[in-house]
């Protein structure tokens, strides 16, 4: 089961390294860590016109599949970054999950039961594929300067810049940056250099991940077992990935010996019992414990933290990589505006406000899932047993069973939002992400709202529903006109009446909405959403 790296990149000496130590190169923004979060952030910034230096201490991607579930929201973000279609083409699309107890099915759920969305609820895709596609996209963008085998070993905060010391195969060199974004993962070395706290809850239970290669006829669904016949008293998870690879997750005893459990000869019989045959090969086996924790502050001076560097959750719920991508989309437009001077630096503070609250929500949800899977006391186990047995007979019991609540974007309680003053029966509230909807016939134009948002420029955008009093949109913002020909779905999903208008943020969240927009109200809401008071 040799795991070879999927893509290898060469180190190349950069002219910055030839400069005198006393005259280091300066860059507006340096992103550290070329994982899914760092790559996405760099692409987003570059598309907004910012030159980005992207550093990574390795020279390859690979090492098992790690994150595999990418959410609808993540796919919509990658669509904006010009990388979504390849992900979906390669990925395994799914929306149905089944929960089993013992040998029988308790219930099934559909994460996207309605039509009219460009993207599915989830795709399964190995992280190394996602990273490879993002690297390909990076190479199309000359504004991104991606430097492999550039390891940050020193960080000093100054009043108006950061001084980084970067180690390379040719030795160290200094670099100045106005802002640094640390996307360098759970063991973030920048977090340590910043001296930041990273406290949280440690879970004692151990889980074994195996990626196995086989041709099988299981449907493309997420299957979760409580107390399955092949793994008594514990839980198990089965997921399909591309390339005939299947992800198997098995809960182990807290006192299981990792070295013993990890041996293929010990893993194989257990998985053979699960699958009913042993015609499979191992691609990757890993044993892990996890923690749920986040940094107190996502911003330290001129250094911002995103993804696993800022927060960690249990893997049940696909909240790790997906929430990291939500960090990137949240930060990119704010950083861009501050670097352009079109918003004050205080706008960056809302990155911490919005994303740390999202991290708390993700930690809460994934901790609950984990506690349900691994009850901490006899009474907790007893209550879970009651829920599982009630789930066979009752609807409420089914809804209480927690085999992992899957990632959905948070709704921000944020100073950037303008509170509703009119009556709404539905639609996304200020601070919520925009739901997709199909649009009517527009020759050569977008067929989905998410596409219209991209074509309008992924900036502050007015979503204007037809047949109201005319209002001039503020200068510099995009406008998407929705007519009656666009069909009912978009009107219904936005609880729209003639003249309804939504002000969308550049990350595709609602800033404000109006039944009867006026220019003055739009100007005020726009200034607030841009952090200009």
């Amino acid at each position, binding site marked *: 089961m040799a795991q070879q790296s999927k893509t290898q990149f060469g180190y190349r000496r950069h002219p910055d390294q030839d400069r005198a130590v006393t005259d280091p190169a300066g860059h507006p923004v340096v992103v550290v860590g070329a994982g899914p979060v760092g790559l996405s952030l760099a692409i987003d910034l570059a598309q907004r016109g910012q030159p980005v230096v992207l550093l990574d201490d390795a020279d390859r991607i690979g090492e098992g599949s790690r994150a595999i579930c990418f959410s609808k929201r993540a796919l919509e973000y990658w669509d904006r970054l010009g990388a979504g279609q390849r992900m979906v083409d390669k990925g395994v699309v799914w929306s149905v999950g089944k929960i089993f107890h013992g040998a029988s099915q308790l219930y099934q759920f559909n994460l996207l039961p309605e039509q009219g969305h460009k993207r599915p609820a989830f795709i399964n895709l190995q992280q190394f594929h996602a990273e490879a596609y993002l690297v390909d996209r990076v190479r199309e963008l000359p504004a991104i300067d991606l430097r492999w085998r550039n390891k940050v070993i020193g960080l000093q905060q100054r009043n108006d810049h950061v001084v980084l010391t970067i180690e390379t195969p040719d030795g160290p060199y200094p670099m100045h940056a106005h802002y640094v974004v640390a996307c360098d993962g759970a063991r973030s070395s920048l977090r340590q250099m910043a001296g930041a706290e990273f406290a949280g809850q440690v879970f004692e239970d151990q889980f074994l991940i195996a990626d196995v290669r086989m041709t099988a006829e299981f449907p493309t669904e997420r299957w979760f077992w409580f107390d399955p016949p092949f793994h008594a008293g514990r839980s198990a998870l089965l997921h399909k990935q591309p390339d005939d690879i299947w992800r198997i997750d098995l809960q182990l005893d807290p006192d299981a010996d990792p070295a013993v459990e990890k041996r293929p000869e010990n893993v194989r019989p257990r998985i053979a019992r699960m699958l009913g045959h042993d015609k499979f090969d191992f691609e990757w086996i890993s044993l892990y414990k996890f923690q749920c924790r986040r940094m107190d502050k996502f911003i330290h001076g001129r250094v911002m933290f995103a993804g696993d560097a800022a927060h960690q959750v249990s893997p049940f719920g696909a909240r790790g990589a997906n929430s990291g991508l939500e960090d990137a989309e949240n930060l990119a437009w704010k950083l861009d505006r501050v670097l352009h001077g079109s918003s004050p630096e205080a706008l960056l503070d809302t990155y911490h406000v919005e994303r740390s609250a999202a991290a708390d929500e993700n930690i809460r949800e994934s901790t609950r899932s984990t506690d349900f899977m691994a009850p901490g006391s006899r009474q907790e186990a*007893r209550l879970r*047993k*009651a829920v599982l*047995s*009630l789930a066979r007979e009752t609807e409420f*019991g089914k809804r*209480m069973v927690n085999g992992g609540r899957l990632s959905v974007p948070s709704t921000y309680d944020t100073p950037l939002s303008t509170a509703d003053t009119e009556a709404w029966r539905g639609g996304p509230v200020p601070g919520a992400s925009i739901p997709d909807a199909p649009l009517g016939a527009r020759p050569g134009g977008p067929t989905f709202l998410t596409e219209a948002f991209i074509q309008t420029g992924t900036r502050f955008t007015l979503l204007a529903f037809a047949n109201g009093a005319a209002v001039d949109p503020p200068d510099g913002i995009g406008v998407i006109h929705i007519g009656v020909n666009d069909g009912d779905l978009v009107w219904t999903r936005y609880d729209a009446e003639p003249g309804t208008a939504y002000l969308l943020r550049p990350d595709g969240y609602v800033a404000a909405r109006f039944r009867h927009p006026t220019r003055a109200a739009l100007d005020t809401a726009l200034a607030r959403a841009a952090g200009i008071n």
Partner: protein
Amino acid sequence: MALSTSSNFAKPDDAFRAVVEAHRGLSDEQSADLDAALVLILANHIGDLEVLREAIELARRRMVDASQQQQQQQQ
């Protein structure tokens, strides 16, 4: 206070007996399982988190009282 603590049953003794008799013939372990299921069924029926929290608080007060009594006895 959202939780009703006035007497809601016409015949409270019947309600008490119904719960007591549900446990007849059960081991302690089975009784505990029954209670766990019953709590969840009733909680769902109430369907109001605030009421549930107040009920939990009222029930937990007994544990606090019991441990205080124990401490006083030890002193």
